[in-house]
């Protein structure tokens, strides 16, 4: 008994498309996938093109460390070293603080936390990443800087600032507002902790439990197992997590701009106001009048793009490495 109507003759081209549009479909998919790839290339290419004037005018000396930096929109002469320094010093200091904290949290969450507490705590740590950068900046200006950064800065100036090797980094007095590279570094540290923690926690969870058991069965304590077996085992993954965090810190704009004081002087101290690559772009691009000014800012953006690109690639490679590790026993007899 046949219930289905006889199949109509499929001569209409529209019907043929409707029923067999696979080539069109697959073609569209491929096109869009390629478009995504093209986007990434386009960003780099466009930045390259738009900064051409500045690159020709200043060459490599635009980016190099120099004792006499010059960023002068009036005279149309630009040199980016203070901003590069600001970005590097705030990000590295933020990493210095964030890595031990993140490792501690990751260890706590993956090894020690009772199972029912693990998910809620992980969520809360991830919430730190969800808070917008401007809110961090706002809270920074009115709450964090007066209450924490100012006293910490004064303390550091009096202690570390007296040690000969570190004097350069901690010289000068932190302004009353607290606006300084230190403020930016501390807020950056808070902001990148979730990134490093999440990846590190996944690295720990991926380590085979036989490694833990072998160490504990030898009479090691939990901490000794973590410190002497698990951390070395997952080291490349943890390094990848740190590099991801570093990349995030380098690119952070709004919170940094609001608390760093935005001063283009050539000082080195963490306690004084400064500038970063992203914050100079944020502050000056919209009002840049001369083409050279705009192009210099775009060149700074290009440098930022290349830097984060390289860091991202290194991080992905390292994290991928941990997954491949393991005692290859079956291969040999």
């Amino acid at each position, binding site marked *: 008994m046949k219930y289905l109507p006889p199949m109509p003759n499929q001569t209409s081209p529209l019907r043929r498309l409707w029923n067999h549009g696979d080539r069109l479909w697959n073609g569209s998919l491929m096109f869009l996938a390629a478009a995504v790839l093209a986007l990434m290339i386009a960003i780099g290419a466009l930045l390259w093109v738009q900064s051409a004037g500045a690159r020709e005018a200043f060459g490599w000396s635009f980016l190099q460390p120099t004792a006499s930096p010059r960023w002068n929109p009036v005279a149309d002469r630009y040199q980016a070293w203070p901003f590069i320094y600001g970005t590097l010093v705030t990000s590295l200091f933020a990493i210095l603080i964030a890595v031990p904290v993140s490792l501690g949290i990751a260890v706590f969450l993956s090894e020690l936390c009772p199972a029912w507490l693990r998910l809620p705590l992980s969520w809360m740590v991830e919430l730190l990443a969800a808070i917008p950068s401007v*809110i961090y900046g706002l809270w920074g200006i009115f709450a964090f800087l007066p209450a924490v950064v100012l006293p910490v800065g004064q303390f550091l100036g009096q202690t570390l600032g007296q040690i000969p090797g570190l004097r350069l980094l901690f010289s000068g007095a932190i302004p009353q507002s607290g606006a300084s590279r230190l403020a930016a570094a501390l807020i950056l540290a808070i902001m990148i902790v979730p990134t490093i923690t999440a990846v590190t926690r996944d690295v720990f969870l991926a380590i085979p439990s036989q490694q833990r058991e072998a160490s504990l069965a030898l009479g090691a304590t939990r901490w000794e197992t973590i410190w002497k077996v698990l951390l070395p085992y997952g080291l490349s993954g943890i390094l990848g997590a740190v590099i991801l965090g570093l990349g995030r810190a380098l690119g952070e*704009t709004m919170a940094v701009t609001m608390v760093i004081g935005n001063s283009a002087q050539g000082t080195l101290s963490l306690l004084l106001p400064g500038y970063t690559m992203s914050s100079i772009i944020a502050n000056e691009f919209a009002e840049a009048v001369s083409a050279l000014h705009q192009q210099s800012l775009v060149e700074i*953006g290009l440098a930022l793009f290349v830097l984060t690109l390289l860091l991202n690639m290194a991080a992905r490679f390292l994290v991928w490495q941990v997954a491949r590790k393991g005692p290859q026993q079956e291969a040999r007899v």
Partner: protein
Amino acid sequence: MTGRTLSNATNITGVSPDDPPTLPRRLAYIHPRQSHPRRAVNALMLGLTGLMTLLALAPLVWIIVYVVARGLPHVNLAFFTQLPRPLGMEGGGVLHAIQGTIVLALLSSLFATPPGVLAAFYVARYPNTPLGIAVRFGTDVLSGVPSIVIGLFGYSLIVKQQGHYSAVAGGLALAILMLPTIIRTTEEMIKLVPANLREASLALGGPEWKTALSVILPAAANGVATGFLLAIARASGETAPLLFTALGNERYDIGAIVRGGIAAQQSLGTILGRILNQPVDSLPLTLWKYAQQPYPERVDKAWAAALVLMVLILLLNGFARLWMQHRASKMRG
């Protein structure tokens, strides 16, 4: 100790007759008591990791409490329904920013979702082709690009060509930000759909595109939607990409545009153009500008905006995560 004696010809274990007969005991003199310092170190370090977790969560709690405390008094009906008053005057609201946020969210979703979902289909279907690998790599890279660099890209691509700032440019910049999240989440959700579902549809004579859209996509829809929510939550909080694309506009009022358009009997296309083609503000952008102005009323509005923004993002994030949890527990049965 070559061990090549006669008895070794049949002894294949490697134990030679010269080895000491019993295991000398070197550690026997270690009194069990000596494990006490190790236990103390263990307890100390593990306690420290718990402390780190608290240390990281403290700013979260502080920010939430502080924003609520400073923002709540200034959130009122006028805040949501009125345009800003001139500088220095009390009252008014941020209607322009709220409308702008909505317009930008709609535009960026429109720009990011179809290409993102379709590109994810390609990557999930052909993960090991050169294009598939390249797209996955490109997505990773894109997710690490600083948002201010994306803003520069949007400026160079659209604003400079068009000669003016617009919501469209801002929507595009935000879409680029959302793209990696959407691609990654969709790809993972598609991979979770059982292979036999797809094969069943194909075996019934369904073409690839129908299979994708009416079988696979609905099966993956929940996960894709949560990924989308997370992407929107992130995009709504971004400021840097909008600085040179949407710019900001205190006079933006969709209601006025529509009424004026109807009164002047303009076509739908013209009205739509007027809505989308001019600069717009968003909540984070407004926050950023107001926070730095010397007028207390503006700063109060900034706090109120921060509260609204934070609540919005926390709700989106919380809802998305609860949804994921609910789905995960349903799958576990």
